[in-house]
């Protein structure tokens, strides 16, 4: 399998602050690769470096064998980049936006309308072709942005948080479209702060403060977690966390909504009795305790500890 995207020892500083700090990764051809990290981890900067919108202080990027710095025009004719913010023209209609990007990327005239139709069907935007982009819902805007990115049939797609601010149903639909693209042979690099979306990728990289924490096939990611993970559901998660953190057997205690995620080296039975003992001493009613598979979020928290 060939390496479609290669990032080697990439460094980008803004002032004294390293947005990307000696980052290296490679994405195989036809892969759906997820770049996961919290806000400010350096995801956007990495993508901007990849498509040549920013110049690295150190290191290099290669896409489809071309060096981003030296062969920028070849690289740009092959990649599609979708920035994080919706950045199409709100005063242009769906069709006008698509036509503009088709012309900008040198799509031949005869080919243009055919692709417009195909993309409109593919993204299910065809009933809205004459609607102004400003009148579209969040999910439709993202689909239009993706369609504009796809108009020149790029072989590599760089998507920066494409589903941020999109409702759950549209998010699912959007990911289905990404899967369809992958099956057509497109290589995708997607950033996301959503851990559940990471599971949909073939391969993921967790980054934090511009540094690579870990990269692995997403199915192997749970093996990174050295302990057991339990979900504890009590009446008062904040106080429960406070008291449980005082005990050595609970390696980490994190609050996720109204539940606690507690990691430990012991198995479920001794864990449950230990937890119930601590909480009953403090008079906090326990609703349930169960063993769970650690989510990428848990792993992230664990890795950052």
């Amino acid at each position, binding site marked *: 399998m060939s390496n479609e995207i290669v990032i080697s020892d990439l460094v980008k500083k803004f002032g004294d602050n390293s947005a990307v700090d000696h980052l290296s990764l490679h994405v195989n051809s036809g892969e759906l690769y997820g770049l996961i990290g919290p806000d400010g981890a350096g995801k956007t900067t990495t993508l901007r470096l990849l*498509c040549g919108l920013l110049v690295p202080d150190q290191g290099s990027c290669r896409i489809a064998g071309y060096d981003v710095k030296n062969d920028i*025009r070849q690289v*740009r004719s092959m990649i599609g980049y979708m920035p994080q913010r*919706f950045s199409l023209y709100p005063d242009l209609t769906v069709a006008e936006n698509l036509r503009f990007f088709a*012309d900008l990327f040198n799509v031949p005239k005869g080919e243009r309308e055919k692709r417009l139709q195909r993309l409109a069907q593919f993204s299910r935007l065809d009933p809205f072709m004459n609607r102004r982009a400003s009148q579209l819902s969040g999910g439709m805007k993202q689909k239009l942005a993706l369609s504009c990115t796809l108009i020149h049939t790029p072989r590599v797609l760089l998507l920066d948080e494409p589903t941020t601010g999109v409702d759950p149903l549209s998010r699912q639909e959007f990911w289905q479209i990404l899967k369809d693209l992958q099956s057509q042979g497109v290589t995708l690099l997607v950033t996301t702060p959503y851990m559940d979306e990471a599971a949909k990728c073939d391969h993921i990289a967790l980054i934090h403060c511009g540094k690579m924490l870990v990269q692995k096939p997403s199915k192997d990611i749970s093996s990174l977690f050295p302990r057991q993970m339990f979900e504890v559901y009590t009446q008062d998660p904040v106080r429960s966390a406070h008291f449980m953190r005082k005990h050595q057997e609970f390696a980490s205690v994190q609050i996720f909504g109204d539940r606690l995620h507690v990691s430990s080296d012991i198995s479920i039975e001794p864990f449950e009795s230990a937890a119930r003992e601590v909480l009953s001493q403090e008079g906090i009613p326990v609703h349930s305790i169960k063993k769970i598979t650690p989510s990428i979020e848990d792993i992230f928290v664990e890795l950052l500890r």
Partner: protein
Amino acid sequence: MSKRIRALMQKEFIHIIRDPRSLAIIFLLPILMVLLYGYAINFDIRDIKIAVLDQDQSSTSRSLAEYLTSSGYFLVSSNIMDRDEIEDLFLDRRVQAVLIIPPGFSKQNQRDSADGVQIIIDGSNANTATVAINYLRLALLQYSTSQNLNAAGISIPFQIEPRIWYNPDLKSTHFIVPGLISIILMMVCAMLTSVTIARERETGTMEQIFISPIRPIEIIVGKLFPYVGIALLDAAGVLLFSYLIFNVPFRGSILLFFALTVVFIYASLSIGLLISTKAKTQQVAMLMSMVATILPSILLSGFIYAIASIPRVLQLISYIVPAKYFLIIDRGIILKGIGFSLLVEPTLFLFIFGSLLLLISLKNFKTRLEG
């Protein structure tokens, strides 16, 4: 022309026709400005109300007052007897000027000396005051000349002591309205273009354009070219308006006028482009173009205030204000009907100025997010 440039131009055109604000700036504002400047900034004043303090009370002094009234510019609204009354007249705004004829005025022809006619002017409105002073001076001069002719051979018998310093130029609609073209073109070329590029940066669409295989020069041509057409349309509109409504004559060659206007547009667009390489948001672009182009075009170009009468430092700045050079071209062709041979210098300046700025902008206009 490349397909990419055409696509950008088409898109820019759609932006303009779908944006009421742009449309208003392009079409409504020039009309409004022509009417406003044409009617409101009018330095020609008729029926200036004056009071006469006649301390001479002779037939000569009375004939002087009558002479002023007959010119049509002055209206003697009151005759006063005492200097103390002057301030009340000014405070009530009943008169704008007071003419004081000293005792013994009629005998001056013989005595040829001493007490002159005095004018006191309400200087709270400097413009009106200046004009009043100039009219009075002229009228008195004419009067004294006519008196001298009567009494042949005798030198000018009285002197005027104006109390207000000022810009000695008299200006009128014929002068102002053609000059407006430079302001309007600056607005369309520098302000609108810097704002439209800043908008693409602000909303992130520039990022999308940068990522395409487009060259910087193609972006610049595609974004700016539509404004050349709009600017020419505006220039033609103002000319037509000034001709139809204010009867401003057009004495020179129309072809030459538009050819040199294109040179000015070129310089203005370069300013807009340079601003857009620096301004990250629309507001900043708007502000920068206001300060860098429109204000100097109004204040430091000779549009209203003669350059000679502004402070020395500002005079030096005025040398790099393109509008100053365009005003020479514009007024020269429209009002004086002069040909290109006399306009080579300002045209050359505009061309070099524009090219210099364009080069700097091109250097700064990278298809990247930062350097």
